[in-house]
């Protein structure tokens, strides 16, 4: 099993060093993790750590250029979600691995067509555990509803889901079991949740670019 934490932010974005993340996540039972915001060279010796280029607020016209920059070994491209049009653009851009922060996108930002595109192109949709922990009341309810919509679409179109802690501090880290418990607030089928913890490995090892005929 390749159980991965889909995204953690080390220092300077967070308060934890990468080596400390490695120690903590190994202790929690993860077989690997994705680190956002650091150059890939800095983790070259650690096979369990993959780096991610985390693209936020990139204009649609620059997306292809940014995502298409030479991807190094064990590097992934994460793109922050926007409205439906932007998300469709992201999902049709070659080189993108994961669409992230979907809960912040406007209503209907991730629709059936986006789900279909994600499934066809094997692009993951990242769900973070942090809003489930940090938000309260109506804000949390909104996130749970949004996540439920995404799980419903996943159930139908079977695109890969990527679960992550989005940790910037040591207190944000969650063990795989905790992640399952938290996401079971949204979706009861634990099998899908476990598969989602492994999906980043499948996304990274997807075979070649998809060609439309």
């Amino acid at each position, binding site marked *: 099993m390749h159980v991965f934490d889909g995204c953690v932010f080390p220092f300077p974005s967070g308060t934890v060093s990468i080596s400390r993340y490695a*120690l903590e996540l190994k*202790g929690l039972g993860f077989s690997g993790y994705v680190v956002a915001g650091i150059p890939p060279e800095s983790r070259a010796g650690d096979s369990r750590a993959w780096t991610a280029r985390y693209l936020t607020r990139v204009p649609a016209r620059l997306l292809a250029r940014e995502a298409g920059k030479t991807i190094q070994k064990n590097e992934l491209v994460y793109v922050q979600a926007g409205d439906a049009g932007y998300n469709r653009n992201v999902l049709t851009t070659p080189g993108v691995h994961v669409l992230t922060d979907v809960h912040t996108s406007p209503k209907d930002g991730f629709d059936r067509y986006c789900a279909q595109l994600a499934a066809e192109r094997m692009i993951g949709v990242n769900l973070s555990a942090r809003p489930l*922990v940090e938000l309260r009341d109506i804000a949390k309810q909104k996130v749970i509803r949004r996540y439920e919509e995404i799980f419903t679409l996943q159930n139908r179109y079977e695109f890969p889901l990527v679960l992550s802690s989005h940790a910037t501090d040591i207190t944000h880290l969650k063990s795989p079991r905790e992640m399952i418990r938290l996401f079971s*607030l949204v979706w009861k089928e634990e099998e899908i949740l476990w598969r989602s913890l492994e999906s980043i490995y499948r996304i990274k090892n997807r075979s070649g670019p998809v060609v439309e005929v």
Partner: protein
Amino acid sequence: MRENFRYILAVITPDLTFESRDVYRAIAESVMSLYGDSIAAQVWPSVMKVEGSHVIIRCRRGTEQYLETALSAISLIQGIPAGVRPVKTSGTIQTLKEKIRSHTDKRDAKAVVSGITCDVIVDMQGRIDLKEKGIYHEIPRYITKEDTEDLNYDE
């Protein structure tokens, strides 16, 4: 009729010590926020023991999953950012007490990180936490021996 209880051992991160009533308030608030009064009454959480950063919490048998989820959803205790991580569930407190590792395996030290000397706490697994949190913005708060240039244990 006698109630059947289950006990959950949890670890508070970062390594801080809180009073049991503060931990209880955080747990009760989390259970209430997630499930409401009805389930909170069923779960009946109760803090049995706090030992350093370890805490043993009691709940009704069959409600362990609710409690585990609520523990995972805690982000603040007494206004301080903290997480509560469930480690083991058992039918007796004794089993969990055996699991609590000794707290004497931590030492104070001075570490040099990026040319800055700072007071730290080192545990035997190699985890190093800065004592003066928030003072140094140019170095991470939670590190390992790998990140230090020099490490001297206090006498």
